[in-house]
């Protein structure tokens, strides 16, 4: 167990180093220091100011030294110009001049709330429909549910999102525009404020879960052990819920692991469509403004979150399925 964590942790750091090196090179070195200065300084910038910016950002130093300064800044903090940036320092935004770390910290609760709600709905409804379809396999219910899943799978967030907004907000005015409220302040508002994006994410991802659960359940129901249980005289409900469902969980957990990572790291299009200020929207705005430190920070944080989420899912996998051993 300990060996597993040490190994995975080392691998994680390795992957993050590779990603950070490549992104840092692409953002800060590939297009040349003049461009970076221009982006930081804006269009109306004197030569003197440009020289100052170039020095402050360390763009006059060799590439690996710049990278080293950036990376040590994350661990220990560093000074940029006359401002000191405390650890974990990801630099200052070019457009708002605020610390990148702070902006990401402010956006994180929104992204996390979005992800958690969407995952809960995905599991409840996506997996739930799959279980029902498997229990009623071959009947009309099964066909209807499978069709629903296929059609839902063809929807995109940027199609379903506007549709939901149109129906619930603009035409009928049943709801307000989605907005993030802190869960700790008002759980009710938190849920109603995010319900539309949650539904949106759920519908988009549902197809995969419904299909996978259904096929895994059907497989499990055809397995020998289920026949044995039937012969033993176990009730149908117990067979479905206690045994077949549990057997079907592993493949679902694999896909869920990938999705959790993706959702936690920022659901770019969802946040953009519903104007929620999470990490994903931060990234879009940073790209629009050519805000390099912001982009770099978001990319790194998102990669780190995805990798950690994947690690946690691997552990959860071992808990669900005792045959899986961590090594």
């Amino acid at each position: 167990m300990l060996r597993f964590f040490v190994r995975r942790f080392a691998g994680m750091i390795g992957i993050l180093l590779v990603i950070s090196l490549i992104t840092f090179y692409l953002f800060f070195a590939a297009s040349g220091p003049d461009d970076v200065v221009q982006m930081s300084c804006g269009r109306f910038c004197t030569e003197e100011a440009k020289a100052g910016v170039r020095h402050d950002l360390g763009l006059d130093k060799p590439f690996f030294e710049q990278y080293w300064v950036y990376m040590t800044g994350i661990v220990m903090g560093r000074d940029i110009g006359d401002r000191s940036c405390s650890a974990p320092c990801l630099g200052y935004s070019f457009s708002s001049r605020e610390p990148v770390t702070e902006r990401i910290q402010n956006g994180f609760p929104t992204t996390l709330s979005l992800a958690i709600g969407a995952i809960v709905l995905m599991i409840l409804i996506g997996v739930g429909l799959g279980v029902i379809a498997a229990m009623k396999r071959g009947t009309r219910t099964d066909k209807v549910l499978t069709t629903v899943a296929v059609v839902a799978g063809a929807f995109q967030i940027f199609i379903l999102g506007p549709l939901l907004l149109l129906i619930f907000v603009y035409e009928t005015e049943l709801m307000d525009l989605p907005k993030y409220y802190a869960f700790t302040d008002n759980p009710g508002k938190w849920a109603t404020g995010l319900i539309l994006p949650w539904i949106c994410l759920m519908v988009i991802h549902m197809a995969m879960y419904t299909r996978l659960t259904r096929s895994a359940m059907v497989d499990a129901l055809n397995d020998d052990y289920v026949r044995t249980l039937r012969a033993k005289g176990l009730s149908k409900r117990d067979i479905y819920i206690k045994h077949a469902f549990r057997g079907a969980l592993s493949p679902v957990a694999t896909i869920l692991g990938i999705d959790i990572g993706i959702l936690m790291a920022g659901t770019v299009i969802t946040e953009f469509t519903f104007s929620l200020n999470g990490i994903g929207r931060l990234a879009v705005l940073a790209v629009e403004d050519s805000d390099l430190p912001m982009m770099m920070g978001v990319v790194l944080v998102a990669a780190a979150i995805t990798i950690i989420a994947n690690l946690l899912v691997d552990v959860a996998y071992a808990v669900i399925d005792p045959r899986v051993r961590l090594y």
Partner: protein
Amino acid sequence: MSQFQVVPDGGGLPTAGGEVEPEAFEKAPAEKAIVGRSPRQLAWIRFRRDKAGVVSGCVVLFFVLIAVFAPLIAKLYGKDPYTHYGNKDPNLLNDYGFPMKPNGGMDGEYWFGVDPTLGRDVFTQLLYGIRTSLLIAVIVVLLVTAIGTVLGILAGYLGGKTDFIVSRAIDVLLAIPSQLFFIAFTPVAIALMVDDSARTETPVVVQFMGVIVVLTIFGWCRIARVLRGQVLSLREREFVEAAKVSGASSRRIVFRELLPNLWAPILIVATVDVPTYVVTESALSFLGVGVQEPTPDWGRMIRKGFDQLSTNPSYIMFPAIAMLLFVLAFNLLGDAVRDALDPKSDR
């Protein structure tokens, strides 16, 4: 995912993956001799029997034909997607830039209406828009499949250091939140390809190439992983061993022994990938980082409709419905292709 077994030449019942073909089974006792069928023929027979597959295949074909013949259709229809008809005809748009007629300006002249503020024809924009998405998606799928196949087979067959490097690269790429990386790197890729000193508008070709390069770099790992796994299991099979013993070169083993067994998974992944990339390309345009004006593009049309959702909701309808239909049809086609090529798998 399983692969095809060697089908006995006319000897026994034509079986693929252990499943007995019902049709072949019925025919067997008749006076007709048992027909030997190649895996390809079997797959085609299975595909033809799948109603949803055939219908969705026709819909996909319809979209592809539209993309190919867009200029011809536009010519017959008498409009093009670039002209600002709103400037020519003062009766099209009102003072706020919105179409005067209801439903986004739909009438006999402009079938699907005109777009707000500029007064361009929506019908021709839709026709040309699919070209953008489909062209990018098809090129990316071709590149991704080629790169992924080569690297996947190499990693699986050679093992050792090659496998280690390719597998680590796959791990890194799969661990990355792709949506976010696409939007972060597409502008970088485009910026790297143009000469900055010119400071002119980015040529359309470069915009296309930027999107294609980024999608390819992050995309090859999926097919490579699938193929690596397949090769790892195929490598230990008897027919490869036999080829090795008989002195076949690695080249021959890879191309003549392994590759024919890999067509099914390659085709399956490629068919599933096309709609994925159409959607990804549109998403990039929706977020404003992909192909720019005035090249017609579904994603950007949806974005424009979205920006005016509360004031002019009809504009978003056509690109959204078109895209929905296309993706639905292509997804169903992907399922049918998988069922036909890989009958053992269940959805």
